[in-house]
Structure formats: C-alpha cells, structure tokens
C-alpha cells in the first residue's frame, strides 16, 4: 500500500489535504485514497525474508474479491491495512476486548485472532457493511438514539456482536444481551446504553433476521 514505490503522493498534496480540512472526513480522506486493494508485492521489499504468500478468494461486505496475502497477516490487519476498512478497531490485538469483531459466515469472531488466509472461500461482514443501500441497520439507529458510543472505539465491535446475537436470537432478554456481548469491553463503560439499544433494535423489527449480506 503506502510504501508501493509507484504510488507516491507528493508531500505537498498530503499537507494540502490536512491543512484544508475542517472536519474529520476532509482531513484524512485524501490520504487514504490508495490504501484499498493496493498491490502489496513491494510492501516488505528489503524485509529480512519474504514471508510466504497465498492467493485467496472471499466475499467482503457482499462483494467478491481475490487477493494475495502474506500468511502471517491477521484478519484485522488484512481489513485495516490492505482493504482500507478501518472501522474495525484494534483494542488489544490478543482476543480480550472485542473491538475487532466482524462476522465470519454469519458468526461473530475477533478478527485479531484469525489469520487472513483462513477466510479463503468465506464471507466477511464488517461495520462498513452493516448499513445497506444507505440505510442504517436498526441496531445502528438504536445505538444513536440510546447514546451507545461514548468515545466510540468499541462501537464497531459492539455492533457486530449485537448483529450476530440478533441474527441467532432475534428477541433476547437483557441478560442474554449481556451474555452475548460480554466479549466486547467498553472502557467508557456505557454497557447500560448498549444493552438498551440492542433491546430497542430487537423490538423495532425483524430486519436483523436474515443477516443480509452475511448469508
């Protein structure tokens, strides 16, 4: 991606991007333009030894794609660094916090604790794939209405866990929501509001039943 030698953005361009930006999107959008799907071949040129690579095919947020990955990449690295999908966060990188939660064939997994090569032939839904055709998932709307996110760093993970929960149990009790999402730590500790929001989304409608893209 960024170290690909042919893809230099001039420094001037970079700084214009940052200087002009008054809001987040304007500030960083120009900088990330080439991250998604960029050729990774030159990435570790000059590294001590070239790590083994594997060609894989998978479905990401409904779209099929093929890619050559380094075998040691975790799934969250693949998503964030090589597909430009930075909505999944790394809170611990060791399976403790849940910030990296995504759906793998409809089940919630910690993407920091999966290897990228393992998703060959599988389907992944990330936070970026939760809204469909510009329409928010009822969970997202409920998270807004009930003020789920404080700092928001755990939110993608909370949403994906909640999504998996409602796909398998459309009308959970509060206790079931807590149990289903207990692998998602929120240090702002807005647990009450997250649970309320999931219950509200579950009461709001059946739209979470099929899992949409996850099928």
């Amino acid at each position, binding site marked *: 991606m960024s170290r690909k030698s042919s893809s230099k953005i001039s420094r001037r361009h970079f700084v214009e991007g940052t200087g002009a930006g008054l809001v987040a999107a304007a500030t960083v959008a120009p900088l990330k333009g080439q991250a998604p799907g960029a050729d990774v071949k030159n990435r570790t040129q000059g590294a001590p030894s070239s790590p083994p690579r594997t060609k894989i095919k998978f479905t990401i947020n409904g779209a099929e794609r093929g890619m050559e990955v380094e075998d040691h990449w975790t799934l969250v690295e693949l998503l964030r660094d090589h597909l430009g999908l930075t909505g999944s966060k790394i809170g611990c990188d060791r399976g403790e916090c849940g910030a990296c939660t995504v759906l793998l064939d409809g089940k919630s997994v910690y993407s920091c604790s999966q290897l990228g090569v393992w998703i060959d032939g599988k389907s992944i839904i990330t936070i970026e794939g939760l809204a469909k055709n510009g329409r928010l998932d009822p969970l997202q709307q409920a998270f807004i209405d009930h003020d789920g996110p404080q*700092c928001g760093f755990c939110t993608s993970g909370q949403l994906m866990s909640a999504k998996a929960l409602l796909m398998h149990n459309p009308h959970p009790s509060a206790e079931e929501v807590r149990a289903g999402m207990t692998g998602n730590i929120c240090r702002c500790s807005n647990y009450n509001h997250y649970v309320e929001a999931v219950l509200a989304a579950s009461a709001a409608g059946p739209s979470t039943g099929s899992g949409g893209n996850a099928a």
Partner: protein
Amino acid sequence: MTTLNSVGHATPRIDALKRVTGGATYTADIAVPNMLYARVLRSPHPHARIRKIDLSKAQALPGVKTILTHDNCDIIWSSGDTRNKRYLFNNPVRFAGDAVAAVAAVDRYVAEEALRLIEVDYETLPFVLEPEEALKPDAPEIQPGGNLSPNNQGKAEPAIEKRGNIEEGFKAADHVFEDRYQTPHINNAQLEPRASMAHWEGDKLIVYASTQGIANCRTDIAKDMKIPVEKVQVICQYMGGGFGNKNQCHDFDLMAAELSKRADAPVRLEFTRKEDFISVHGRWPTVQYYKVGVKNDGMLTAIQMRGYSGMGPYRKGAGDISGVEVYQVPHVEKTSYMVYTNKAVSANFRAPAYPQGVFALESVMDDAAHGLKMDPLEFRLKNYTRKFRDQQPYSSSGLEDCLRKGAERFGWKQRWRPAAADTGVVKRGVGMGMGMFPSSLGRSNAILRVDSKGNYDVHVGVTDCGTAAKTTMALIAAEALEAPLDRITVIWGDTDTCPYSVGESGSRTTVFTGQAVIEAAKDLKKQIAEKGLPKGDQFWRADAAPNPQLRDLARYSFTAHFAEVEVDTETGHIRVTKFVAAHDSGRIVNPLTAESQVKGGATTGIGMALHEQLLYDKRSGLPLTAGYYNARIMTHMDAPEIEVVWVETDDPYGPYGAKTLGEPTIIPAVAAVANAFFNATGKRVKELPLTRDKVLGALSEGALA
C-alpha cells in the same frame, strides 16, 4: 430554573453517525504514503543501569530506518516528570516498561523483529514497590534527590493541610475511630491504544495525536522538540478515550516526531495493549491512615489523615488524596507523602485524587456511624459540608438533595438494616458514599462565524474524548445564538483551525469552553443586529477568550451514590444488584449524553471496588496483570443497571449554570460498594479491590483483611 430551547434537551451526538458506521477516523486509522511503523523496546527490569546497547544486528536488518536510544537521543519529556529530568529514554531505567529504544521500519513485522535484535546489557539494581518501604532509610534510591518527591517549591517534604487544632478536635470527641486503608495502581485502560502519527513538512511538524487537549499537546511538543509553537500542528479528530492519561503531550508523540525527522518520512508509532498497561500511567496507589473524632450525637470533631501515594519513578501527577472537604468538621490535619517507587508511573485517571481517598474516608465514616448505631445516611446528613472547608460559601450546593433524593430513589429506608443482619449464605447489604469535585471557572476560547444563509461555524479546540463535547458546544451555541441545532457546524480537533481550548481534563470543557462559545455568540448576535446577515460569500466573525473568575465563593459539583450488593459467602463473589447515582452538576446541558457519563463513571468505580488492579510480583518487581482479562476490567456481565438522579441546582456561574460532570461520576461509587459489603457481612476489607481471596479471608475472621 427556566426551561431553555436547546440546552437541557436530550440530544443524540452530532457525530453519532460516524461513530456507528465505522466512519470515525482515529489516529491509528491514518495511513499516508511512505509511512514507517514504529515500535518501542522496554525495560524488562524494574530498576537497572544500562551498560551498553548494541544496535548492530538491528541496524543491519533490511527495512529498519532509524533507531533511537539514550545514546543518540537526549530529548527531555518535560510533561513526563514535573520535578526531575525525564528523558525519552532513560538510563538507569526505573520501572519494568521504561522505554529503552524506539525503531522505525518499513512495517510492523520488521520493527518488531528489530526490537528482538537489539542487545541490551543491563546491570540490575535493587528496587522498591511500596511507598512506605521506599521511604525507609535503606531503601534503594530511585531519583537522585531521594524517594520523597519534592513539592512545588522543590522541597522534599510531605504536603500538609491544617485547619483548627487537631488535638483539640480529638479532645472534644467522645469516640475515636482509626484504621489503615490501601488502594492499588489501576490502569486507565481506555480502549484505544496509544498511537501517534508524525510528519514533517519542512520545518513544520504535523502530529496526528490521540490527545485530550490539542492545545496543551501542541505547546508541550513544541517545548520538548525545541521548535516554535506555530511550527507544530496537532490534529485529533476522534479519540478512543483517555480518562486522564492522554492529556498533554506524551512520549509517543515525541518519539514519532523525532523518528520522522531522522528518517525523513511519516512515522506511525503504536503501542501494544501490554505497553499501554505498564508504560503509560494509571491511578496512583495509596496507603491511608485515618483517625476520626465524633461526639455521641454523631457530630464530627476531627479528621486526621496520613497518606502515602506511590508515584512510580517519575512525578507526572499531583499524588494528593482528596475527599475530606465533603465533611463539615472544625479540626483537620492531612499529611500526604508523594513517593517514588519502581512501579509503573502514576498520574491522572478520572477524578485523580478522589475515588481512592473517598473509599478510605467513607469507610471510616461508615465505621463511625456503625459504632454509634446510627443510620449511615443520617450520619452524613448531619455532617455533610455546608461551606467549603467550613469557611467559604458555595456558589450552589445540591449535596443534601443528592443524599435525600438519591436515598429516596434507592429505597434506602426500606433497604437499610444494621450490618450483618442477613443470616443467609448469600448476604444482602446496602452502602453509600458522597463526594464533590471542583467546578472551577477559567480561560478558554471560541471563534464563531455566520454566513449569508444564517449557517454558523463554531471553532473550538475540543477533541471530544467520548464526553460528547462537540454536541455540548453545539447545543450551547444553538441556545446562545437562538438558532436551530442543524444550523450549527462544529469545527474541532485541529490546532490550525481551532483556537485554544482548555483541554478535556479536570472536567472543564463544558464550563470553560462553553462560556467562550456564549461570549462569542453574544458578539455575533450584536453584529447581526447592527449589520444584518452578511451578503454573498462574506462572513461575520466573533472571537471570545473570556477568563471568568469566582469571588469569595467555592464552586463544586456534588454527588451521592447508593449500592446494594449480594455477597456469596461460599465463593466470595460480590454482585451489585442495585445502584443509584445522584448528581448535582448544575444545569444538565444534554441529559442523554450526561447519563452516559454517570453510568460509565459509576461502573468504572464499581470495577475499582470489586476487581481492577495492576498487580505486581514482589520478588521480580514485574506487573502480572497487564491486560483486560487479568486486570479484570468491567464487562457487560459485571455491569449493573445504574439509575441516575439529577439534582439540578441553579448555579449563577458557568454556561446556563452548568457545572462539572465527567469526573465526579466515579468518586463515591467505590465507597458505596465497599460499604455495602460491610453492611452485608459486618466485615471490612481494607485493601482494594474486594477480590474473592480478601472477601473469604475477611469472612473467616478477617485473616487477610
């Protein structure tokens, strides 16, 4: 209190959409062309002199660009220690986790491989972990001036606060209660690990920081990098929490900046979660000795406290132990020792000096009430503070209402019974605590603009670390401008586009920056009244930098928390079954996000009471619980429902009478839970957290208590 149009109405965050779609960009999400990755090598010893660092193998690794160590980098991180010189890389290293080297390389894998190839020859030194031990004459010396950290005047003396005459206070008492309490180091554990992305454009340094205050972060970076402040731009659009440990500039910002300078490329430095736990900072651990005098009728006569705070090897935080002011009492003596130890550094974590102080204080007070056979609520109603330090009137105080209304919502009268009344295997009990936190006034800035269509831009230097500060500013602007909320755009988090703001620490943003927004809005409204709206692509603009001061008044937020617990006497497990948090934070600007603050703060306090700690191995001096699981951070399953009671006092200062909120929310929660445990069992655990070993120990005649 009059009802307002925008302020006081539950309003979803103006940036909520970004936060629920993955569109909010945090520091570690920012990637730019040719960016290098940096990692830090840390000391595996609690105290050691570095004899030699051999970089030859690491430097020979293809892809390694730059390595910093104490041999080649003498940058002083001035906000990392306010008393001594703290370099980015120190020799000797003084705690397990002290930075030894930083590597920038083409990717993470190479950077991490390089860390493994750096050979460090350490001469290990004796170490000391506990503050009382560290003050003994034969203790290992951590800083050249000795282990008692100097005060502001540079004198190695304890901080002493006196009022009245403590001996007279005890003479006047019918009963005296005394005890020793202890609280551990607890990491802030904000979910976003530390990251910084730095980049130079000529002689201008641009830092994408994860900071609670872009303005103070910028000033600190400029000072330590020895460049003019105008040559530094700090950007922080979204940040994943800090709770006090992302204020000012941090060593990772400086490391990223220096690595970037030397490598002539953008550098993103990332900490691992373990590094975040051991090498940043957490709440200071304390040992507190209390002695309290009371009359037969329950009136307090004296409070004496001698406390020791373990600051780690560098003095980054104040280290005081607070809470006593919440009681009305004529004779007070407080002596606090801030002590260097070889544990992780201690500094600010949500209400820095309070929850640990109030835990101990409220435990002693609970013992006093128990000893006098009084209802703890009655005891507090008798003794709560009427004037600050019995002298200065408050600008407003809802403390009595917090006690009364909180107790009513909780059902205190029905639920409270004298201690250990429950004879079952699972014992139920209730407890309470009260607290206060300064809500000062002070300087902050805002710039407002209006265009020809009546759209307003509000430029404020906030970052919004999760507090909903942007939304709060928008609501205050809408109110002051008499404009609908959707006409307001907030511009935040970039020192090139935002004026100075106080920074999101000390719970000051709503009051300080909110007041600046009001002042600028007044000016802008006046301009519009005089000239009408601007035409075409013109703007009217208003700047404000108010610096309001209080005269002869103390301004505080107040709170009382009530908890019910169930203690399983066979397993030692404690479960919180009901929790009410009553808060006087003046007028509540946004009840929706304010409830989030209270619920979050109280929950964190419950975790502090029950199981959170960074535990150290006495023999090796190494931290054992550096991670979410082991530090036992609260989870969904641990978190009870928190009921919030607002006591909205009509305060004459602050924006529409708003007072501080974020930090008071954690203060009495710890004590409420600990006191509920006592009420359930009749036993007191005097060392936090109330883990099962201590609970079972206390239940079997307090062997470990």
